[in-house]
């Protein structure tokens, strides 16, 4: 179908934030949440459908990466930091 609809982008965004919130490490978790938010904000005005498609694909890849790294973080969990 044509370039991703707004609803698909929002769905990806919400899913990425949900998965990022699962990082056991305080630093990684905050970085992921912040970076995802800032990346979507920076690209909010992209019009070209090919570019949007490419960014969405990157998003899905990053989502898979986040999931893998969350699992690893859970396997080798350490105690929380002082500000956590």
């Amino acid at each position, binding site marked *: 179908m044509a370039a991703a609809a707004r609803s698909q982008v929002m769905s990806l965004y919400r899913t990425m934030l949900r998965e990022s919130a699962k990082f056991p490490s305080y630093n990684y978790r905050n970085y992921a949440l912040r970076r995802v938010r800032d990346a979507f904000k920076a690209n909010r005005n992209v019009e070209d459908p090919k570019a949007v498609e490419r960014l969405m694909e990157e998003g899905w890849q990053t989502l898979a*990466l986040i999931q893998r790294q969350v699992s690893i973080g859970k396997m080798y969990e*350490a105690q929380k*930091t002082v500000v956590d």
Partner: protein
Amino acid sequence: MLASGRTVSSRLLRPTAWLPLRLSSERTAASFPQKELIKKHEQDEPRPLYMDFQATTPMDPRVLDAMLPYQVNYYGNPHSRTHAYGWESESAMENARKQVADLIGADPREIIFTSGATESNNMAIKGVARFYKAKKHHVITTQTEHKCVLDSCRILESEGFDVTYLPVQNNGLLDLELLEASIRTDTSLVSVMTVNNEIGVKQPIKEIGQICRSKGVFFHTDAAQAVGKIPISISDWKIDLMSISGHKIYGPKGVGALYVRRRPRVRLEPIQNGGGQERGLRSGTVPTPLAVGLGAACSIAQEEMEYDHQRVSMLATRLVQKVMSEIPDVIMNGDPEQRYPGCINLSFAYVEGESLLMALKDVALSSGSACTSASLEPSYVLRAIGADEDLAHSSIRFGIGRFTTEEEVDYTAEKCIEQVHRLREMSPLWEMSQEGIDLKSINWTQH
């Protein structure tokens, strides 16, 4: 593996193996944590905040993700020419080489993988000096270099070379005229680090490169703290050799790289001999997972450089302003303009550095560099910039990086202010200075 209940709608199915479900294996894996890593006495205490990014950096999850396949299944030796394990490993290694080269504007053939910036520095300094020793016997460096550079120069001195250790000005920067005047006809190499690891000062590398090129002297820079944090171009800056460290840019420990210019060619006498890998300059199997990690770290750094720099500058300003507005008599060591913002070295007058570090036990900080932290002497870098002896003892280095949060910076600033006030209350020197006594005029007597 599909957990109960949730249906997977078709638009969510992707070939990238994203799983919109709870992995049953997740629960199993997490119920067998590596108990040995959590020591008994640490189990109830929260871990300190990490604010020591110059000592080392945590690995970016994206870097770990890139490395793991080569630790698990793609374990071939990249120099094996006869089978797929070797070919895929070599291809990954060459891809990583390109990623490192792209970050600094070099050609991939000019990148040599090493075990870290220390090895790169050793290779560059000893290698170049020894290769050209028939006609050239002089090497120039500065007094604020990393220990490995200074130590390599010391070894060269014992081999009969002349080494000039240039002093730096009070702001930590090298005097360019002094450098130009020190270059002799038999100088083979000038080595000046790009960003200092203790005070964060950024040397005028472009101008130094210009001077060295005009005099026909090779220019080496230890860019371990600078690569991936500030834009670097080896052609603009006329750099002939550059050391890169993996674990300073959110990559793995145990890997680094040396950039060796090919045009005009820089020749080195290799330190590590063997099978002729890495253009014969550094024999030994290239550790593919580590090289891939370094490459990934460099490529991520290139993309994130501006974002990270803006953020780190903002956090650094926040920290320094908070601390300096609440506490008097705090000095920032090093030039306030020509610096990398993420490395802040502050001296707190009338407070002993070690006791402040102990008091700030919730925050991981350091006073001076990790390699010199074992000795009781104040850092030689601080001495070189002319810091007062007592101020040199009272200095703390705050490191801010990609993963630092505003909360961490605020917590550090508050704790720091609180503890400095508390320690100063207890300090007789502080009392005396408050009463207006000039401490330098006191005649300390022995009892």
